[in-house]
């Protein structure tokens, strides 16, 4: 483990209330390399459960209820100015757009994004892949998003994006957002989403936010943790046809085959960990 003294960590809720999170700074690291013990700058506000629940004697029958902890500090930091980004809910963004398959390359790894996303403006998402097409060479990996006022990653008209092993703490609206129901072949793996918060300044659907809002099932979701949300963990909100800028009646996401959905966890969600609504009728 290479977490350092001075790093900020985000601790997920393990109760029924997804907002019972804690954010602290490491002041000392003890224990062993395989089982480090962190000393924090202040006591935790909430209780966090750290056990694997086993109801009987069958070793295969268990629920892993251990609390997730993510590190939010990186040496490369991209942020909205601390003076008024928070009060205005108006942070920094990265907007990636040019039309055409592989017309741009965006490789973002191990970067800290703090006070990002711009509330009250549709399309001003923290990390926004916008109407590109295939992006075989692009990825978003091992980053930390620490407080966003408008989503974490938006996948809009974009295919073959890899979103791998990121930590998101406290983002408003749907956190990982598949926008127009035509986006396919994206790989969303090993991400930790802590505390997705409702937003009254985006789409109506963002009033009931999901850690991952999935409008087209032909994407791959593996080993993600939806750790706390005001409403949903994973929401398959499959659309009848492509919507928005990609309105297309020849595309029927409700009937598309499912890519992969395996090994995902959800807990501490306001309503459902996994929601399938309205229809999912793979042909």
């Amino acid at each position, binding site marked *: 483990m290479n977490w350092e003294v001075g790093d900020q960590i985000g601790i997920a809720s393990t109760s029924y209330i997804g907002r019972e999170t804690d954010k602290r700074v490491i002041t000392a690291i003890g224990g062993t390399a395989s089982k480090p013990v962190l000393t924090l700058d202040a006591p935790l506000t909430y209780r966090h459960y750290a056990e694997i629940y086993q109801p009987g004697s069958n070793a295969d029958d268990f629920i892993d209820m251990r609390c*997730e902890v993510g590190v939010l500090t990186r*040496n490369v930091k991209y*942020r909205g100015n601390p003076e008024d980004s928070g009060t205005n809910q108006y942070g920094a963004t990265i907007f990636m757009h040019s039309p055409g398959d592989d017309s741009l390359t965006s*490789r973002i790894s191990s*970067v*800290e994004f703090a006070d990002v996303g711009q509330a009250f403006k549709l399309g001003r998402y923290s990390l926004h892949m916008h109407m590109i097409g295939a992006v075989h060479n692009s990825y978003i990996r091992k980053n930390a998003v620490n407080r966003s006022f408008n989503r974490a990653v938006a996948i809009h008209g974009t295919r073959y994006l890899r979103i791998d092993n*990121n930590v998101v703490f406290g983002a408003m609206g749907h956190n990982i957002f598949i926008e127009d129901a035509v986006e396919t072949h994206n790989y969303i793996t090993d991400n930790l989403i802590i505390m997705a918060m409702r937003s009254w300044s985006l789409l109506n659907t963002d009033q009931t936010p999901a850690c991952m809002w999935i409008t087209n099932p032909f994407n791959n979701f593996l080993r993600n*943790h939806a750790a706390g949300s005001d409403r949903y963990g994973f929401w398959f909100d499959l659309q009848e046809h492509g919507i928005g800028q990609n309105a297309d009646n020849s595309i029927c996401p409700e009937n598309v085959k499912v890519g992969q959905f395996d090994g995902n966890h959800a807990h501490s969600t306001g309503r459902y960990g996994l929601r399938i609504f309205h229809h999912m009728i793979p042909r």
Partner: protein
Amino acid sequence: MQVGTEEFPYTSKITITMHSTIDDPYIPVYGNKCIGLRFGTLDLHGVEKEPVWTVME
């Protein structure tokens, strides 16, 4: 734009701070207070955290 590369990530400390408000001038499509990428390459690479996240015991 480039901060480090895949092979050689940036190892010093860097903070990029963006300013602007909702009423300030903006670039059509891309907005303000933003990095806009069009037909190019954006490389941002810091030092990896290992692990990025884990569970308590």
